[in-house]
């Protein structure tokens, strides 16, 4: 998931990759940089999303060098949309592109399966997201502080991890604002815990 807050964006993801029911990687990194201050959350087929991210990273890099400035988040998300839409019959990729640029500040763009691109104040994706739509709608508000935003995403991802079998492991977070990028990780034994009967 990715959330806009007053100053930038906060992104968070779980770390589980499964092949069927077996957990192939329990410490995966689903928050991939495609430029200095633009990251993508990857969900769906790992192969497809890695391919798309690498491609867009290359094109964005060329574009940034040509421009001589930091590329815009809407440009990055548009490149992702282009690949996802025109290859929609072959890809299974749900991506959330989020970051910070000097023109529009923090932005979150969702590019789900099929290739629609839409800017949202916050976006959730992946198989676990269905369990937290209610929680997110109830607890999101505009202009959250960084700490409020971090607590929001950590609780949301922990709730999704508890209910969804395909989600789990650690919670990785990335904070992107004008000052830079900060990456963090919450291990399994420090996750927020809810009702356990």
């Amino acid at each position, binding site marked *: 998931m990715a959330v806009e807050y007053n100053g930038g964006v906060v992104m968070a993801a779980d770390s*589980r990759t499964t092949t069927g*029911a077996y*957990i192939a990687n*329990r410490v995966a990194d689903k928050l991939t940089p495609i430029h200095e201050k633009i990251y993508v959350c990857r969900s769906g087929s790992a192969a497809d999303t890695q391919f798309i991210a690498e491609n867009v990273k290359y094109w964005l890099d060329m574009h940034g060098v040509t421009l001589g400035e930091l590329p815009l988040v809407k440009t990055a998300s548009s490149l992702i949309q282009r690949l996802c839409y025109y290859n929609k019959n072959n890809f299974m990729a749900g991506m959330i592109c989020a970051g910070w640029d000097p023109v529009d500040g923090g932005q979150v763009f969702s590019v789900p399966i099929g290739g629609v691109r839409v800017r949202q104040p916050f976006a959730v994706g992946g198989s676990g997201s269905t369990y937290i739509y209610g929680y997110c709608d109830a607890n999101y508000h505009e202009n959250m502080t960084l700490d409020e935003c971090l607590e929001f995403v950590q609780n949301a991802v922990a709730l999704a991890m508890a209910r*969804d*079998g395909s989600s789990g492991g650690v919670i990785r977070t990335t904070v992107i604002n004008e000052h830079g990028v900060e990456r963090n990780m919450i291990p*399994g034994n420090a996750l927020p815990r809810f009702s*356990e009967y």
Partner: protein
Amino acid sequence: MSILEYNGGCVLAMAGKGCVAIASDLRLGSQAQTIAFDKSKVFKLNDQCFIGLPGLLSDSQTFVDKLKFRTALYKLKEGREMQPSVLSHVTANMLYQKRFGPYFIEPVIAGLDENGDPFISAMDLIGAPVFAKDFVLAGTSSESLYGMSESLWREGLEPEDLFEVISQALLSAFDRDAVSGWGAVVHIITQDEIITRKLKARQD
């Protein structure tokens, strides 16, 4: 997706010195979605016999009711409790009766016989039994459980050590399985008492 993986879950049983242990996870799911965190797959039939029934929960619950009926009737007719080795053969027979429309369960049986010797056995869904001296297991994390059990089990484990070994084996194994986990319960059965403990596990 196999019907045996629909609800998810796993059971492990181990033999020690004068004791047996049987443990299961607590998750009930509907494929990827988790429905409950309190569904143990281990059932007590009498003081000597415990049976673990991982697989399709609907069949586990139906089959354990049939087993409770058979053990109660046995006690009335024979005037004594059913021994675990007898339970094993009864279960295998009941499963083979349904050879061409089976119950989707893979039973794991653990108990102490009348001499106090540990007894463990397991079988597939159509009743092919295996009688082991060390450990038996079944469920969606079976491959991981085999690896953990082969590494951690050793002969002559006392009850408290057996508890540690079975708990670590089960927890490490089902933490690699997306459809098992969310807590565990362990029963240690000795001549004098049955100790039941709940394990705190990752809730993911």
